[in-house]
């Protein structure tokens, strides 16, 4: 079983503002004994995961290991075969999911695409006002009146982020949202993602193929392997983190070796990695 040791040791750094996170309070969500089968084929076989509110969790794993399936269950897009998902005090409606593709409506202006995120929450002028504020946050306020087709890939993904955030979700599930972007835009978007997350304190669940991305962004990294959690590590590095620093590289290589079938001795941690699996 998982053994949570909160709060994790965070190296003090005067430049870093740690947002107060209620780690001992009600969880952001709680997954127990989750099993998912598709016509007899078991994709998730007993996943247990308790994520405190406001945590930034990254899920990595080989292609086809069930990451997207887990995310879709979390967002309520599919029903679990067995097991439960409890959403703290919030509803599944407070969970937003962002995909690899931006999924913008080509026939709606940028601002109207963002107001889609306020369906059933607000409409008309107030909705547009809120949408514009979100667009400013992803630095696209001057593109509000344009068609999505004239935006670049990274800009479209930023619109999708604004749309996901405008309804102020408790949990934001991200299914490889940066996977289709070039390396530089990725790093820029990672910074943006971290900034809005720190500003708002929602619980973030990021699925990614890019282990470096997980290490740079996440409080905690879960490795999914054949439908099970194979590794669950904390990332107690100060923020903001930079690609290529020794600590980031060290943790990245540890996780990579685990993903590539590295030895299990790795599971017993050396500082600064706290291993919990």
């Amino acid at each position, binding site marked *: 079983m998982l053994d949570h040791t909160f709060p994790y040791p965070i190296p003090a750094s005067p430049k870093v503002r740690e947002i107060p996170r209620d780690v001992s309070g009600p969880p952001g969500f709680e997954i127990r004994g989750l099993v998912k089968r598709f016509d007899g084929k078991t994709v998730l076989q007993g996943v247990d995961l308790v994520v405190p509110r406001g945590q930034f969790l990254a899920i990595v794993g080989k292609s086809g290991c069930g990451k997207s399936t887990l995310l879709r269950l979390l967002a309520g897009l599919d029903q679990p075969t067995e097991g439960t998902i409890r959403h703290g005090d919030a509803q599944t409606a407070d969970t937003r999911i962002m995909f690899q*593709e931006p999924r913008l409506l080509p026939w709606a202006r940028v601002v109207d695409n963002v107001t889609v995120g306020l369906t059933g929450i607000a409409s008309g002028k107030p909705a547009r006002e809120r949408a514009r504020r979100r667009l400013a946050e992803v630095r696209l306020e001057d593109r509000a009146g344009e068609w999505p087709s004239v935006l670049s890939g990274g800009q479209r993904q930023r619109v999708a982020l604004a749309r996901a955030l405008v309804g102020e979700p408790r949990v934001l599930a991200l299914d490889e949202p940066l996977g289709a972007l070039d390396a530089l835009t990725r790093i820029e978007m990672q910074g943006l993602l971290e900034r809005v997350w720190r500003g708002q304190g929602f619980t973030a669940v990021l699925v990614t193929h890019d282990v470096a991305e997980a290490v740079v962004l996440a409080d905690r990294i879960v490795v999914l392997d054949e439908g099970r959690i194979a590794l669950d590590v904390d990332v107690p590095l100060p923020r903001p983190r930079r690609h290529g620093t020794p600590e980031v590289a060290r943790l990245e290589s540890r996780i990579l070796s685990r993903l590539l079938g590295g030895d299990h001795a790795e599971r017993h941690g050396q500082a600064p990695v706290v291993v919990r699996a």
Partner: protein
Amino acid sequence: MTALARNSIGWLLPLTIILAWEALSRAGFIAANVLPAPSAVAAAFWKLLLSGELLRNIWVSSWRALAGFAIGGSIGFALGLANGLSRLSRDMTDTTLQMVRNIPHLALIPLVILWFGIGEEAKLFLVALGVFFPIYVNTLLGIQGVDPQLVEMGRIYGMKPARLFWRVILPGALPAIFTGLRYALGIMWLTLIVAETISASSGLGYMAMQAREFLMIDVVVLSILIYALLGKLADTFARLLERRTLAWHPAFQT
């Protein structure tokens, strides 16, 4: 090139042809009882315009075309929507419709004359039937072709069915619906010409048939030209509508 120059370049060829035609007729290379000179056609146009006969016939034909289009188009659109949105409806009606589609609608003319005589109903029925299928098929295809990822996105954000339809499904199907619309407009004129030529007591087709009886070949050519003009007008209108509604489409952005 300016927009004006680009527009006028398309008219250069027809203009040249008309000028050459006039010259050849005057020089006696084209016999007047085979093909009248453009000036003769223009004279016929003027005469019929003054007598009011031309406008009356254009009006009658246009009314038939539009009424038939409205009937057939709205039924086709409604069924296309129903079958695109509801599996039950599709299972129940699509096979039948596909079977009927394989009958060329003009093959029904003898039957239609037996049913309706040469009254208005016959023409409306044929036009409606001809217009129905392109609208039906393309509406259905358009709805089935809407990106399921967008539909899923709409659901994630809590769109109710009506909202999902107006904001996601219908706009997504619109490009295909326009393809159907323009195709249907072509069929509309074609059907009407045939129907009016075979059985009518008014309209452009009737005017052409009457003129043939009296060997007024200039009037025959005039009717053909007017058909061409009306067809072009309908197409231009559809294009304009398309350009306005599909302004978001990359194909319509300059």
